[in-house]
């Protein structure tokens, strides 16, 4: 009898719908005629452009430099000429300045992309390269990775690096495919992370619905000291940082805290691949694997796409276009992704999936909100042990003190509560609104309802 699988408390089970795309190899999407690279592709200060209109750029060349410590560089994903600057909306609703580059079709690589001597690699060099080569969290949060490896000196020492290969969202399979197709780079990236932080232990966490990836990685880490593969029970949201740290190490990250507070750093497996290429070959982050799926896509699958490619181009040229009238376009996974109003968005560092649904799918249906029947399902499934219905009642009453007392800030917006609610109440949406009001950002920054009490 195998030992109980690593898991966390509460949470939900969602039909995975991954079979549309998880059996096929990653295919390349051809480079587009134009790429639109936002200066704000990461958490933190936007990057500052170092090119101007008319400049010729090579593939991998720096076109914008970090705007501060918590920021990252941006690189050209194709070779060609800078033809303009555009303000575009990003899927999360924020507006960003974008550098537009016209493709010259040559893919001329930048001269500084060449392999490095193993002996040159030191923890400080790793930190420097992670920022220089634009490595940010590719699981979706896009947090600049070098910051994770420069924790404050007064915290506990980092003793475990966890690579997040969980991918608990339905439909999305990009992490699964990179686990199968680039496993040695994942392990190399993990070793660089362990070197940079001084951690003796590395864990690659994979959800048990990917047995082929678990078997392959387990075999490859047999000879690696300090590295192990951890299969985790299939449950949503296992891939959420706090839940993953608890399942892998048993440690609870304190409220408002980071994993570094318990001596752990978590990074996505795709980030590990990008880090490995940055450190070993001086290769910046210019492309990523994106799952194009959903019932409307003609050729669902995982595609290697250059950053800055518009969704419309990728869907048309890699996934064979779509069929039917679209009813929902989701950037990311169905549980935490953003529904967008067109295919006119660029693929950015955190874009793991683009899902297209037409009117033949359940996604074409919009439920009507009912009254809370106090069933308690939301309370039972919340992985952060909150009481969503209580928070939402307080938000509806504009009672911000009680909402804050109910720990509204601790909500990770995973969507488990809304998924289970029989009255179809959009709990996460109300909680988001509540967080905005409490933060003073509702009403354009002037919130007549609440002043933040110190």
């Amino acid at each position: 009898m195998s030992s109980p699988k690593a898991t966390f408390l509460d949470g939900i089970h969602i039909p995975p719908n991954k079979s549309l795309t998880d059996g096929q190899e990653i295919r390349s999407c051809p480079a587009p005629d134009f790429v639109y690279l936002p200066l704000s592709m990461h958490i933190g200060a936007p990057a500052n452009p170092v090119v101007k209109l008319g400049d010729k750029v090579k593939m991998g060349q720096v076109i914008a430099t970090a705007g501060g410590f918590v920021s990252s560089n941006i690189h050209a994903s194709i070779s060609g000429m800078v033809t303009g600057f555009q303000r575009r909306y990003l899927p999360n609703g924020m507006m960003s300045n974008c550098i537009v580059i016209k493709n010259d079709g040559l893919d001329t690589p930048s001269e500084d992309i060449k392999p490095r001597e193993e002996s040159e690699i030191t923890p400080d060099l790793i930190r420097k390269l992670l920022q220089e080569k634009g490595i940010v969290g590719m699981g979706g949060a896009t947090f600049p990775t070098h910051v994770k490896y420069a924790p404050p000196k007064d915290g506990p020492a980092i003793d475990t690096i966890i690579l997040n290969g969980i991918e608990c969202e339905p439909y999305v399979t990009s992490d699964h495919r990179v686990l199968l197709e680039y496993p040695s780079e994942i392990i190399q990236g993990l070793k660089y992370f362990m070197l940079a932080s001084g951690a003796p232990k590395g864990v690659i966490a994979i959800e048990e619905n990917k047995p082929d990836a678990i078997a392959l990685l387990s075999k490859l880490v047999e000879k690696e000291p300090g590295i192990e593969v951890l299969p985790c029970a299939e449950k949503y949201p296992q891939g959420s940082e706090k839940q993953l740290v608890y399942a892998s190490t048993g440690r609870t990250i304190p409220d408002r805290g980071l994993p570094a507070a318990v001596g752990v750093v978590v990074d996505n497996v795709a980030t590990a691949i990008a880090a490995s290429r940055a450190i070993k070959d001086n290769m910046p982050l210019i492309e990523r694997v994106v799952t194009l799926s959903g019932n409307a896509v003609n050729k669902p699958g995982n595609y290697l796409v250059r950053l800055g490619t518009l969704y419309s181009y990728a869907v048309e040229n890699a996934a064979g276009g779509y069929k039917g009238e679209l009813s929902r376009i989701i950037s990311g996974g169905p549980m935490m992704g953003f529904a967008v109003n067109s295919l006119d968005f660029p693929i950015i560092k955190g874009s793991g999936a683009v899902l297209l649904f037409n009117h033949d799918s359940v996604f074409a249906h919009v439920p009507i909100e009912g009254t809370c029947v106090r069933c308690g399902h939301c309370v039972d499934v919340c992985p952060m042990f909150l009481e969503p219905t209580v928070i939402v009642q307080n938000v509806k009453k504009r009672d911000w003190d009680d909402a804050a007392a109910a720990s509204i800030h601790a909500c990770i917006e995973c969507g488990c509560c809304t998924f289970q609610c029989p009255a179809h109440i959009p709990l996460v949406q109300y909680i988001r609104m509540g967080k905005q009001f409490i933060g003073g950002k509702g009403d354009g920054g002037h919130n007549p309802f609440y002043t933040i009490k110190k």
Partner: protein
Amino acid sequence: MEPTKEPASLVILSSSPHIHGGNTVPAAMRDVIISLIPAVLAAAYYFHFSAISVILACVISAIVFEAICQKLMGRPITTYDCSAAVTGLLLALCLPPSFPVGLAVMGSFFAIVIGKMIFGGLGCNVFNPAHLGRAILLASYPQQMTTWVLPITAMQTTHASTSATADAVSSATPLVSMRAAEQLWQTGQQATTQLPSLWNLFIGNVGGSLGETCVPALLIGGLFLIWRGHVDWRIPLFYLATVALITGVYGGVRGYDSIFPVYHLLAGGLMIGSFFMATDWVTSPITKRGRIIYAIGLGVLTALIRLRGSYVEGVCYSILMMNMVTPLIDKYVRNTSFGGGAKK
């Protein structure tokens, strides 16, 4: 700039999550109705036509009253969600057989209009509507509410005289017999022969309300609801365990027969109350710890009323009293967020 292909139709811009698990209130209510089918069949088997007429009267009138109220309140009519039907059905199962149909309709009125609609409809009521209806009926029509009959199957095993045309014969319920037996036990006499056998009590071959007698039917339904995830197992478990513990200790201390706690578990409305009435979503707490406290409170009150109160049945009033306490439990029994208790 390259041309972009815009979708021709309107797309839905929802806030995440964009998928739903498929739970709905009507589906859950339908599951409750399905889980009560064994009890309805048992009632029909034991009490024949009077059972069917009371059940139909309660269910139909509950649906009609809710629709009328919603129309008068200017709200959309939501009777399709079956919650009124469930209330009517549960009320009917708490009524004695051969209860006058007109009074059963009155009961539905009290349950739906006073127990639910004046509070604001589904989700807003403080009391369990079916039990509130029953309590008002008991206070208003005590004679009819305490006229019990034996099912025909039980009549054949007793030597009470029967008339050829009667469907059933008036008799005491097991709980009433228990009170009489207790008095005999206190004087040291054996009284077990006064009580129906445990098997008859279990299978429902005794007098009682329509739905509360046949324990296997109720257990099947209750376990079905737990399996479907509509009912938290903590409530029936802690409720029944508390009643068993208190009656067991009470009987043990006084030297009663050892079937005393078992009898209490199987007799009266405890089975139907613990699985179907105490677990009503709207009137029970929303946290797991809260539900345990609620269930233990129910057990204490039920045992107290049955053992020391002048009523023989404690379930109805203890559920109504704990319903009043539920908002207090929800206010003070709060979850600490994950990581909220840890040191910073």
